[in-house]
């Protein structure tokens, strides 16, 4: 038991106030109070997440709550079932406060593409919180909830974590069930936790990871899906061999590079071994990622036709500009004449990215580098330049192409937060979390 759930819900509602960050699209205050009383009364009070309040990204189904995916197209949709990962969080004693804001259908890097208005960064209200799990990152950074469940397609929890100064982990593809996730790009994405600290991530992963017959991709996961919190503090820095890909620092803002290198220096001073490695295909990862993202999104969006799902009156013309761009580009890159040049080329590049990761990780435990190439930028700064917006994802998308675990942990920084990214071999999420904890312990910034 980590605290009184009823008091925890009241504290969360007080911290949320009028939600100046536009972090939530739906708050279920009465439902949360009822649920907290249930948790306190029942055997759940001894459950691992009892007393912890959690926010859920609005592309994850929770029966009885709306699910908009940040789109007006789904403004009136209520799912008839609960996503596996959400049900597992609740079974572990967590209380869901509500659904968080996000870029429409997770198509965005800044949190500005929601049909319900942009999310604002709690560290600076004039800046973006990062996306697409923008409300999830803001809800933790603002101190409303200690835990948030988002999803990561190409950096969608790591960007908000880096920009808002919290921790996040994109698990190995297939470790957490996608059942109940409104999908954008099914081969790249999955539910992913954000938390105030690394221990929170591990506790959440213990609750949500593991096989689910509703998700065929689970068979690919190698991890057993348990024991992430156990042994978290056993990560002695002097036992860590850290690969530092030189490409992770190319084109990165000098102040971000300096702060991440300083953190790596502190880790080395504590006994970690740093080894320079290379991921040559990283230069092509962004284009390969986006081509595949477009192709998969265009296919996924076909169901939102106003008959099966969506608002028939608004029609497909009601999608936001970024979703339209991606549908058009997905149609383009998979068209008969263009498929070889784009879609098939991206598949080949993706395979090379995975091979590069295997080579780079052959003699080290984890890889480390910056999470984002810059600190949080100003709202509207890149809104009219999609290519510049995509460039924000340059350091995060390769983990999704390769299906490997990747987390972001804040490092000591003056002013706006900076995230350090930790990546590992597929199935070694526990090792990634331990390495993140080792960085967190050194940084002492909380």
């Amino acid at each position, binding site marked *: 038991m980590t605290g009184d759930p009823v008091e925890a819900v009241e504290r969360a509602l007080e911290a949320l106030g009028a939600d100046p960050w536009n972090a939530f699209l739906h708050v279920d205050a009465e439902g949360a109070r009822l649920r907290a009383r249930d948790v306190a009364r029942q055997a759940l009070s001894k459950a691992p997440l009892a007393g912890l309040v959690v926010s859920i990204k609005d592309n994850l189904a929770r029966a009885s709550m709306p699910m908009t995916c940040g789109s007006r197209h789904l403004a009136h949709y209520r799912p008839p079932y609960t996503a596996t990962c959400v049900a597992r969080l609740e079974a572990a004693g967590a209380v869901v406060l509500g659904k968080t804001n996000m870029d429409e259908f997770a198509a965005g890097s800044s949190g500005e593409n929601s049909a319900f208005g942009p999310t604002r960064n709690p560290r600076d209200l004039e800046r973006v919180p990062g996306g697409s799990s923008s409300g999830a990152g803001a809800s933790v950074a603002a101190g409303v909830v200690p835990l948030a469940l988002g999803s990561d397609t190409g950096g969608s929890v790591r960007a908000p974590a880096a920009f808002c100064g919290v921790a996040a982990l994109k698990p190995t593809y297939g470790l957490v069930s996608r059942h109940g996730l409104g999908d954008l790009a099914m081969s790249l994405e999955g539910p992913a936790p954000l938390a105030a600290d690394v221990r929170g991530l591990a506790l959440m992963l213990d609750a949500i990871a593991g096989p689910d017959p509703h998700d065929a991709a689970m068979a690919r996961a190698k991890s057993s899906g348990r024991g992430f919190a156990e042994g978290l503090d056993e990560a002695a820095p002097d036992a860590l061999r850290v690969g530092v890909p030189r490409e992770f620092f190319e084109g990165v803002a000098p102040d971000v590079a300096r702060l991440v290198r300083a953190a790596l220096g502190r880790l080395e001073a504590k006994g970690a071994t740093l080894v320079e490695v290379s991921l040559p*295909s990283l230069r*092509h990862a962004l*284009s*390969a990622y*986006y*081509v595949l993202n477009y192709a998969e999104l*265009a*296919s996924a969006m*076909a169901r939102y*036709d106003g008959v099966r799902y969506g608002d028939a009156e608004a*029609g*497909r*013309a009601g*999608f936001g*500009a970024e979703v*339209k*761009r991606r*549908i*058009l*580009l*997905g*149609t*383009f890159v*998979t*068209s*008969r*004449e*263009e*498929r070889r*040049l*784009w*879609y*098939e*080329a*991206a*598949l*080949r*590049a993706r*395979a*090379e990215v995975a091979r590069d990761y295997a080579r780079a990780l052959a003699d080290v435990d984890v890889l480390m580098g910056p999470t984002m190439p810059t600190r949080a930028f100003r709202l509207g700064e890149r809104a009219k330049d*999609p*290519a510049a917006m*995509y460039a924000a994802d340059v350091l995060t998308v390769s983990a999704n192409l390769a299906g490997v675990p990747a987390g972001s942990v804040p490092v000591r920084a003056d002013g706006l937060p900076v995230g350090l990214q930790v990546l590992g071999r597929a199935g070694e999420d526990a090792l990634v979390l331990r390495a993140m904890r080792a960085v967190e312990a050194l940084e002492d910034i909380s």
Partner: protein
Amino acid sequence: MDKFHLLASGGMSGLGPEDVQRLARLARLGLTPAESAVLAVDLDAIVSSFSSLAAFAETLPAAPERAPAPLREDIERLAPSEVVEAIVRAAPRVDASTGAVRAKGAL
């Protein structure tokens, strides 16, 4: 010079408003002419910025481990009569004398 070589040599994609309108029709996405014009500029810039991808893929030593799954447009549409036959084949059978429904294959 085909589009690939044009892109590989650093040229622009050549995607214009008419291409965008054609893509929008394929995707059943209603666009106004003004939207098409703006999106054409965006798409041209994005596609051009990804122009080195195909050239990079050509340098890779191995083909993809698995061929990509057939795309929606490659799947032949069934003729209406074939659809009806498929539904009838899959449907449970009814005993006309009693009205009892038997599972497929139980007759």
